[in-house]
């Protein structure tokens, strides 16, 4: 296993773990800030990797460093309770014999700062639930208590194992805004295991793609999503994520303009102030290509770009074309026939016609 020197920032993980029918082999260097998503199908090893990072699972030869602290190497294994981490399980795993308040203070440092507890409860919208028993909470409420409980330990890293997977769509919608706020406010790195492309697109800054115990790709979200050389991890959900700034409102047509380095997009009017940061997602299936700028079209969002490459998709009739719009990568899914007829070779200038923009905030 290659030995890189531990750094003072970021998370370095090198481990190898063999099970009878499965082998986890990982060498990762993750950023020390922001949200890292571990994405993959079930059985890809992402949860096991997270459990090793937390010390809940023990990989014998692993090396794990978090922001300069050694959590495991050849000689040392720091047990879970001595690692400055917060962990949110898929099921909230609240202690059923303790009230919400006592669950929250369970891991709080000895000072049991009451203001801190109340501020945290306020932040996660559970202030009115403090004296309830966990079994009288909804799934979404439980998960929010679990997140607050983890944060109250003042962790240096927050680990989340599919915190939304056990919830129905309505409950998910109820928690996502809180997670998005964490994403914006949290000073510590968050490692988030998920198999939902939507959650990844909303929350992640850094993406790790896993498949059968191997890391397939690891990089900044935008770049990694726009890679076409990867196995079709997102399949029909292939697309890019853009971080945009709200540039202008058009009161007459009820539209808002979102600016990004490669151009701008019009979306239905947003009730946010100018300058607000908005993340949006453009599916490859919603992008078509034209060689000339179309004027007689109902599609509003036309972005000039040039082709940088293309790759096969699951469907042999389609190809995935990668574009560059002044530095911003885009993906378009078109037919193989269109590729041939338009003769889309790398370097060729095109107009990307964007039919739909999904706002993620």
């Amino acid at each position: 296993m290659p030995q890189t020197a531990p750094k003072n920032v970021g998370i370095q993980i090198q481990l190898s773990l063999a099970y009878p029918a499965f082998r986890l082999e990982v060498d990762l260097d993750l950023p020390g800030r922001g949200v890292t998503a571990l994405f993959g199908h079930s059985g890809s090893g992402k949860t096991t990797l997270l459990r090793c990072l937390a010390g809940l699972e023990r990989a014998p030869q692993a090396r794990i460093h978090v922001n300069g602290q050694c959590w495991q190497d050849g000689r040392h294994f720091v047990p879970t309770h001595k690692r400055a981490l917060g962990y949110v399980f898929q099921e909230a795993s609240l202690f059923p014999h303790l009230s919400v308040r006592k669950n929250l203070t369970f891991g709080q440092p000895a000072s049991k700062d009451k203001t801190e507890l109340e501020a945290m409860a306020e932040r996660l919208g559970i202030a009115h639930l403090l004296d309830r028993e966990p079994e009288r909470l909804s799934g979404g409420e439980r998960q929010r208590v679990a997140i607050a409980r983890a944060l109250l330990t003042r962790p240096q890293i927050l680990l989340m194992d599919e915190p939304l997977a056990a919830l129905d769509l309505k409950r998910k919608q109820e928690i996502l805004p809180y997670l998005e706020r964490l994403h914006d406010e949290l000073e510590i790195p968050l490692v988030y295991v998920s198999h939902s492309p939507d959650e990844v697109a909303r929350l992640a800054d850094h993406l790790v793609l896993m498949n059968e115990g191997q890391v397939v790709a690891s990089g900044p979200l935008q770049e990694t999503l726009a890679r076409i050389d990867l196995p079709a991890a997102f399949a029909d959900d292939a697309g890019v994520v853009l971080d945009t700034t709200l540039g202008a409102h058009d009161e007459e047509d009820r539209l808002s303009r979102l600016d990004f380095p490669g151009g701008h997009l019009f979306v239905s009017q947003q009730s946010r102030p100018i300058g607000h940061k908005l993340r949006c997602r453009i599916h490859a299936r919603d992008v078509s290509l034209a060689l000339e700028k179309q004027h007689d079209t109902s599609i509003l969002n036309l972005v000039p770009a040039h082709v940088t490459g293309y790759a096969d998709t699951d469907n042999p009739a389609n190809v995935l074309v990668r574009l560059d719009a002044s530095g911003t990568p885009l993906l378009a899914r078109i037919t193989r026939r269109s590729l041939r007829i338009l003769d889309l070779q790398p370097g060729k200038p095109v107009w990307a016609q964007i039919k739909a923009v999904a706002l993620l905030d």
Partner: protein
Amino acid sequence: MLLTDNDLQAIWLTVRLAGIVTLILLVIGTPIAWWLARSRSWWKGPVGAVVALPLVLPPSVLGFYLLLAMGPNGPVGKFTDWLGLGALPFTFWGLVIASVFYSLPFMVQPVQNAFEAMGERPLEAAATLRASPLAAFFKVALPLALPGFLTAGILTFAHTVGEFGVVLMIGGNIPGVTRVASVQIYDHVEALEYLHAHRLSAVMLVFSFLVLLALYVWRPDSKKA
């Protein structure tokens, strides 16, 4: 007075014996149950089987081996002799030790089941909240397993109250020292004192019923937890 002084003495002795045995087994049985519930060791099978032996072994067999072990020529007997305690058979503490073996599965198995039903997750959650293994045990595992402990405590107490064969082998029939209620009833019947036997038996019957009633009334609670 319905019961004779000897009856009362026997009942008091029985209660004392069962109480002490239950307390000792709480201390000894809990770690065994914990280990059996969580270990992945190969030894789990054999140890579990040994713990369960008193369930199927005739009490006289258990009593016979304990008598040999604790007797003046047995290993335990030599040890207690060396300590200056003398031989344990036909003493109250001999009876306590024998009863601890005899009632061991009644303490270990319900507690083990409670620990197993709890699963790893609450302890993992506690560890991610900075609780040391010991703190996690006392703050999470014990409270969650409380219904199991209640069941185990009641069963252990009741089972010790009901023992007979082991007492006869180890303790004999010494008033105030080893003559427990079940032996006292046997004595009454031997002496054809059927009225006394009736009364003491009725006490035992009511006691046993109340114990089981308590267990069955508690059951919904244990399910909730």
